[in-house]
């Protein structure tokens, strides 16, 4: 294709998305930036004023913010790590299956197909210390003598991670599965002819070709995990060290109606996740070379 033609075609193809995103997304996002420099409280809109960097200064000394940042980081690292491992395992398993692939994939999709609030409600039932399935099974199997308080102060974060891993591993698996299927079969055939065993094949062919997909999965999962809200909200309400940044933002915005500081927090979260993502992308790219 001629250069000019190509450029025009590209423009036409990209324009609708860009216009859509700009029209719909620009205003909300920009208004958040602006508001982060004000002390707008939605209950007293007339009192709003420009406060410069005061909100950001408040952020730095906000103990709740730092604590929640820690909680969020812990949650993200552990659950995304687990999801990648388990998702890869699941994708490999399914890919290898000759029969029942459809059934397997559909089964795998089910945890993820549930609305988050429902999955969270169900997990809070299953993890209930008195009438929950887990404790019932564990005690029947003789593994515990006392009821385990899954949603109590010590295990709350573990339970939240567990519920999240259960729910979103399918997401990772699906992406990796698509990646696995995009690897041309004759690569494997060639490797087999060369006498490579499964581990060598995996390292030399599968993993490198899967990298872009792992990157996408990792990226989006990390971004999502860092901003998690629904699950935590329903399971624990943010208690016992499970309050994440999104929960805090939600409270500030809707409980205390503090639009100004809430916007500051939103921007802060955005910046953190953005930097994190850039870091991830850069490191994936470095590895690829």
């Amino acid at each position, binding site marked *: 294709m001629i250069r000019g033609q190509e450029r025009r075609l590209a423009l036409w193809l990209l324009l*609708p998305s860009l216009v859509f995103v700009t029209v719909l997304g620009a205003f909300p996002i920009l208004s958040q930036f602006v508001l982060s420099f004000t002390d707008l409280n*939605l*209950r*007293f*809109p007339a009192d709003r004023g420009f406060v410069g960097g005061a909100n950001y200064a408040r952020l730095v000394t906000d103990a709740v913010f730092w604590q929640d940042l820690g909680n969020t980081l812990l949650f993200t690292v552990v659950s995304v790590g687990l999801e990648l491992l388990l998702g890869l395992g699941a994708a490999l398993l399914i890919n290898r299956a000759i029969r029942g692939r459809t059934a397997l994939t559909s089964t795998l999709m089910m945890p993820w197909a549930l609305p988050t609030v429902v999955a969270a409600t169900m997990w809070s039932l299953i993890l*209930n*210390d*008195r*009438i929950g399935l887990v404790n019932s099974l564990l005690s029947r199997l003789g593994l515990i003598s006392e*009821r385990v*308080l899954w*949603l*109590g*102060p010590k295990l709350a974060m573990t339970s939240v991670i567990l519920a999240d891993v259960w729910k979103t591993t399918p997401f990772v698996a699906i992406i990796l599965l698509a990646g696995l299927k995009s690897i041309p079969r004759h690569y494997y055939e060639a490797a087999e002819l060369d006498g490579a065993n499964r581990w060598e094949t995996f390292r030399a062919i599968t993993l490198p070709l899967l990298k872009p997909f792992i990157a996408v999965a990792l990226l989006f999962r990390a971004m999502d995990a860092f901003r998690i809200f629904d699950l935590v909200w329903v399971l*624990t*309400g*943010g*208690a*016992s*060290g499970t309050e994440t940044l999104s929960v805090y933002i*939600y*409270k500030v915005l*809707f*409980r*205390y*109606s503090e*639009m100004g500081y809430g916007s500051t927090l939103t921007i802060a979260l955005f910046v953190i996740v953005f930097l994190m993502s850039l870091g991830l992308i850069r490191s994936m790219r470095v590895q690829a070379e």
Partner: protein
Amino acid sequence: MRARTTLLIVAMALVVALGGCGSDESGEVTLVFAAGSDPSGATEALIEEYNSAHPGVTVEFQAMPASTDTQHDSYVTYLSARQSNVDIYSLDVIWTAEFATAGWIREVPEGLIDREDFLEGPLVSASYDDVLYAIPWFTDAGVLYYRRDLLEEAGLDVPETWDEFRTACDALASDPDVDGYVWQGARYEGLVCNFLEFLWSIGGSIEPDRLRDETPSVRNEVAAALALMKSLVDEGYSPQSVLTYKEEDARRVFTEGQSIFLRNWPYAWSMAQGEGSKVTDVVGIARLPHAPGETPYSTIGGWNVAVSTFSKHPEEAFEFLAFIAGERSLELRAIEGGYLPTRKATYADPDVLKANPHFERFFEVFRYTRNRPRSPEYSLASDIIQENAHRALSGSMPVEDAADQMVERLLDTLGDQR
């Protein structure tokens, strides 16, 4: 291109088909009443009645998820955007100050109701700064439920002081599977209700003026209350799991016969008598335990109804308000749904009493009720109490530190209120 145009046309068609509710050109007035869903159907029946009796006015019921938090956040979103989509709001008693100072709800016109008709506590919760902004709709207060059969068997009187309470629990402690006292200690609004009851039961309080003027005393009272709550768990009177209990969790333990005492709202009574309960007919209602010489106040719960400032038909809205909080409505909701009336007279109504004989007992207990701190910043205050109380209970923060932090931050938040 063509696919997108089609999509746009389809979308617009759907807008036309589904959009546009509430505005009438016929001169008819449509009012929208937003409240938590009513499983008994009484509210819908009342609205139908109203609509038939008032040609020219149609009231629509917008059922919200029952969760008080979800309602709060939705209403805040509408009202801060100055939307007129809802005319009458049902508001949790703790929101009055917040909504009133934000200018989101209208003052109730003088003479719409006779204040004397209403229970005092709820009436106070519907006012701010001595102005009435809402009409109390239904009320709630914490009570102590106990196993009458077990106490009788052991020859014990219903305990009144904390010491008597502990003694009773000790005497009945034979079964390891049965807990002494279950209440709501999860990190949510209910914890504030429970905490305040413990605080009041030992003679403490966190009224804004006391907070300001008698800070050290308040701080000691708070520490004592937290210590009391923690000791119940530490000494085994309450199970560790109480830290994860909300109303239903605690209620279930009791109706399964696995605890001797329960602190809960009145609704638990019907659950105790209902299907699946193992304790039908052996449950008693009493006032909460207290320190000798102190009064055991119960936290006031419940909901009020108010008219939105942005309603396009305030007159008609207030008319409906008077109806939905009127005698007939409160009676029907009491009979069908067990909602506790906010009008004193309703408690003497024979039909209401027939359907809810326990109301008489509740009425007695409700003589001593108190509101949670009424402040525009209540949400923040509640969060402060929840966070610090839960930390103290779980042992992740020493009781003394938790009390310090709670009082310090409450002073910041509530300090300028009167």
